[in-house]
């Protein structure tokens, strides 16, 4: 496995800032794999939630090498928030602080259940790496939206 260099500080900021990540979506908005939905500008909001977007993308890119099929926003969201569409809707409608707590617990739970992945030698939770992969997918989606509207 090739290792992608990444600043430790940046990396740690990402990991510690996972709790600060919140996914915000207008209540009731569909999350079906519809690039038009993402291109409504929500991609920018989601992207800004990462403390260090570029570092997250670096980790995300490395992860996606192992799991290229997850380079899809909706697929990633589905795997991040397992439990079906209803759970996803509930999560997306929740307050940011609640979303953070859910994600934090999920990260801890990943380690408890052995749901880990090695990224550049790091032993990370699937949740945190998928969050980073989401940054990549959002960035791609955003750039495409920009191309459409630019």
């Amino acid at each position, binding site marked *: 496995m090739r290792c992608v260099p990444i*600043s430790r500080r940046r990396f740690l900021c990402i990991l510690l800032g996972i709790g600060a990540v919140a996914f915000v979506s207008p209540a009731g908005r569909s999350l079906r794999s519809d690039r038009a939905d993402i291109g409504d500008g929500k991609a920018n909001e989601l992207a800004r939630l990462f403390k260090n977007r570029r570092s997250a993308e670096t980790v995300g890119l490395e992860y996606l090498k192992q799991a290229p099929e997850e380079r899809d926003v909706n697929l990633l969201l589905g795997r991040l928030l397992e439990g079906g569409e209803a759970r996803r809707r509930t999560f997306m409608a929740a307050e940011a602080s609640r979303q953070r707590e859910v994600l934090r617990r999920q990260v801890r739970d990943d380690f408890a259940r052995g749901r880990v992945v090695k990224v550049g030698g790091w*032993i990370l939770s699937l949740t945190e790496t998928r969050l980073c992969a989401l940054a990549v997918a959002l960035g791609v989606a955003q750039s495409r939206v920009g191309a459409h509207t630019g």
Partner: protein
Amino acid sequence: MAWFQGGKENMFIDVRTLPNETEIRSDVCIVGAGAAGITLAREFVGGSLDVCLLESGGFEFDSKTQSLYQGENVGFPYYDLELLRLRYFGGTTNHWGGSCRPLDEIDFERRDWVPHSGWPFDKSLLDPFYRRAHKVCELGPYDYEPDAWETETDHHLPLKTDRVKTTMGLQSPPTRFGRVYREEIRAAENLRTYLYANVVDIETRPSSQKVSRLRVATLEGHRFWVSARIFILATGAIENARLLLSSNKTQKEGLGNEYDLVGRYFMEHLSVPGALLLPSDPSLRTGLYSAKQVKGVTGEGFLTLTAETLRREELLNVRALLRTASPQELTRNVSGWTVSAERILKEGRAGNLSNAFIKDLWNVITDIDEVAIYSYRKLVRPAHGVLSLYYHIENAPNSESRVSLTSEVDQLGMQRVRLAWRFGDLERRTLTRTNEIIGEELGRVGIGRIMEIQNYAGSGWPVGLRGAWHQMGTTRMDSDFKRGVVNGDCRVHGISNLYLAGSSVFPSSGYTEPTLTIVALSLRLADHVKEVMK
């Protein structure tokens, strides 16, 4: 032929001053004055048995005697055999580090996933001797529970798991056996120590079932005999095997070697930097995991896998020491990579990340760690500690890991040794899986993240893997004479009056330093010999 039974006033005897072909007679003859030999000798002091202790060297290091330890390494890269051990009164305790801990209970078990594992007895039989060994090694109370070592500021990591736990090791001063016990041995009326006495052959009766006498030589060419009722070899794992293999006049394959076991199953501890730990909390306290004194005794904590985990995962025993990552671990190869890192940082800060950034990243792609950590330390000064997880991994018994003889002879005419240290997939899997388990458990409670050290050498093992200066297993213990060289009493199978002491009899190695177990076994052997001699 003159025979000599010593006088009361001089219990340390330089054999070079004795007439040639002197025969020394005693009830018990102990060969080797290291941790095992001195422990044994002390147990006979003041008793009714007449005991002689043979030591190859004198009271100080001398290079000519030391050169008798020269040999070849043909397996995994290992230390120079001449420098590994010390050949003078006190033996290798003269450079012993002092770390002590008993073997774990599981180390005594026959484990299905570890071929050739299992002792002829369980740990409970050795526990009373471990307690006595504590005094010999100048340790404090026999208490290895972490709770006893916690202070107001130093606690064990808040792991909430049945997979990983904090375990303690204790620190002897370290006891230099040759210095600490010299006067006691000198003053013992029933004990004579012969210095500069090298055993070069073990003579047996034609049936090979009993040792009749030892052939002893000096570097100056003097020759002697030592006869006794009981003989105990306590010369260390490599030398015990060498002596048996060399004594081949009646058994051409060597004494006790009818089933080609002598010299085989050599074990060491794999000492390897396995991972880096970045704590989530910069103020994480790891004081319990550094050597520190509590109530006058030095102890040090480390992480181990529970016995249940070892069984479930089918792993070897292992421990992880927490250390501040060394500069070498952090910045092993600075030059070009560091330049790239600086450029990355500069451009990143100025918001000028460009194609050059990508290019720089790829330049360092083969060794993310040093550059990234260098960057990290620069960015977050004062940096909180990046820690290393430094492992001691049990070495599975392996018949191809062995001590054998070469055709080259030393100054005494004895064949030198060849060491082939070997290990393989089970050790590798233990390292990998232990990293994963510890990483999971630390992540689970938010302590931090670990990164497997991934700088591998051509051997397929991490750079920095080495032995721990522990040699074990070359005359292993087993009740079955087809599976062991000695029985559960450390007596050589088939030879009624020859015993082996020290780490050569270990059937398995655990992860812990062998000295405390060496002393415990020696105490037990002494009790046994006294019983036999009644």
